[in-house]
């Protein structure tokens, strides 16, 4: 099968959905013809679809999301880009109080089919305001779906599902994933929300990992294979809805679980997954649950500092060894 990058997979999803449905349009800072998005995800789309449907905005994150909400409830399907995930904080009211609640508050009178795309993640030395992973905030907001694709295949399939759906989707990307290549069929496909994928089968321990951490977990698993340890890797692919069944099923098989998530440990993604296991799979557990995550610090700038806080293969291997 052909291989394309995560970035290109996202762009294909946007392009195909824009071709398919004239109500889909994009808005965000410098996503248009002069820049193509800070990470070039929308590169070329303004040239193809025009500046009205690929719309550069002022630096006004609240208004970007609010505008998307207003468009979504009146018949359009906006896909808004927030240039860096950290900056979603500026639009938190529009995301969490307006987009997520507008259907509910009004008793189901409206739908809000809106996608918010944004890159999270550390690793490129751009410090505390451009490196966070904040998925957990959005998991804690009922009314939103949260997608966390780790591969080009998942990125394309989930983004298409997000755009076609009837609900607001917080769509997480990762800076280090953009250049990663993977197989993506030429043919049309979508990926349903709420279905985890076992990215690697194994018998001895379950690792639930998301986004860029899936790749680190896979590489850790390869190393451990040499030592005779069989690691199963479950990628939830969406955090809301969360495929609890798949996680519990894997733990039932292996009896051990390590949750790997790039965000800060406390009250993060890994906390929710650990809690689900503690509630629903306790009887299967042969060892304590382990979380591998960023320590509770902002992300520092200097490379040795930054590398110190990002969970790496070594930390994953260490955690796995502690539970087996």
């Amino acid at each position, binding site marked *: 099968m052909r291989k394309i990058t995560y970035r290109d997979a996202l762009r294909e999803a946007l392009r195909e959905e824009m071709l398919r449905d004239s109500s889909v349009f994009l808005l965000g800072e410098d996503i248009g013809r002069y820049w193509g998005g800070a990470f070039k995800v929308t590169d070329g789309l303004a040239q193809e679809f025009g500046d009205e449907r690929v719309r550069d905005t002022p630096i*006004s994150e*609240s*208004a970007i999301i*609010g505008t998307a909400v207003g468009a979504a409830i*009146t018949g359009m399907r*906006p896909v808004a880009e927030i240039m860096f995930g950290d900056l979603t904080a500026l639009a938190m009211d529009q995301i969490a*109080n307006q987009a997520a609640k507008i259907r509910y508050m*009004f*008793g189901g009178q409206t739908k809000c089919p809106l996608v918010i795309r944004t890159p999270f993640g550390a690793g490129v030395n751009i410090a505390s305001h451009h490196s966070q992973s904040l998925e957990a905030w959005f998991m804690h907001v009922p009314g939103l779906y949260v997608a966390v694709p780790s591969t080009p295949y998942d990125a394309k399939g989930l983004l298409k599902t997000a755009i076609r759906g009837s*609900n607001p989707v917080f769509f997480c990307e990762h800076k280090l994933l953009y250049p990663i290549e993977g197989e993506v069929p030429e043919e049309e496909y979508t990926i349903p929300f709420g279905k985890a994928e076992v990215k690697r089968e194994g018998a001895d321990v379950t690792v639930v990992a998301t986004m860029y951490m899936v790749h680190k977990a896979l590489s850790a698993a390869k190393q451990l294979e040499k030592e005779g340890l069989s690691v199963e890797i479950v990628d939830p692919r969406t955090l809301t809805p969360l495929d609890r069944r798949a996680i519990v099923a894997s733990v039932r098989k292996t009896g051990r679980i390590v949750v790997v998530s790039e965000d800060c440990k406390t009250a993060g993604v890994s906390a929710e997954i650990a809690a689900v296991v503690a509630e629903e799979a306790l009887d299967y557990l042969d060892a304590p649950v382990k979380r591998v995550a960023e320590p509770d610090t902002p992300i520092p700038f200097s490379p040795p500092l930054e590398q110190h806080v990002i969970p790496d293969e070594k930390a994953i291997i260490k955690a796995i060894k502690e539970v087996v």
Partner: protein
Amino acid sequence: MTLDLPKESLVKMYRKMLEIRFFEEKVFGLYGQNLVPGTIHLYAGEEAVAVGVCSALSKDDYITSTHRGHGHCIAKGADLKRTMAEILGKKTGYCKGKGGSMHIADFSIGMLGATAVVGAGLPIAVGAGLSARLRKTGQVVACFFGEGASNQGTFHESINMASAWKLPVIFVCENNLYAMGTRQSRIMNIENIADRAVSYGIPGVSVDGNDVLAVYEAACVAVERARRVEGPTLIECKTYRQKGHSRVDPAKYRPREEVEGWLQRDPIKRLRHKLIQTVISTEAELQEIEKEVSSEIEDAVKFAVESTFPAPEEALEDVYAQI
């Protein structure tokens, strides 16, 4: 106040304003009877703004509203019964009891809903305007907000965006001089919110918000500009809330003479006076209308009071759209 509109239109405005006033008086009364859960923010005294603006809109135009939203709903044409039922938390309300006084919406008449976060409606209105543009429908959007809201960042971001994109949005600032207990002069160093239009290169007009025809005229100009794809307008309507901010507020922070001055400029009394003085309507005609409206409101109250509450489990519905 120019009165060169057909009598029909003038009387319709009078009736709408009356509907709002009587409605609010009833809500106030029901509140006292413990039939209204939560809090309420009454629109009494500001009727000319909602009615003046909505009279310049057509049915498929949009509005967005605020915590003080009953008047906007009614002016846009919402059903009194379902509005009242929502305020009472009943299943027959517009939002099946999920929204209440601060979150009424009626999408069927372009009323895109009230938000209780001050200033949060402005970007949503911009989005509706953008949507109208992209769908090429010619619709315009009127966005209501208070002078207090005009200090929110969303005010600035939204109007700038609407202006940069020449969107058909009319920003209607209801300047009732106070945000809760905070007088405008204590938190901003300008008198006319309309002056802020300069920041966006759009027209900004201040009108007597207790003169429904002045509001109507300003709105008509803005609507025409919007439909000609020339961009948004900021209209400031100087008005006054006759009651406290919310249910519990005795509003002692307002000088008595100020309140009395504004009561004398009551928008409904003023229109009534004009209608009689100019022999457009007779006392009898107007009394007839007043009786009609009064009984409509009674019907609404009856409907709302007699409606059932939603079943508890309905709390779990409507979080996500299923298809």
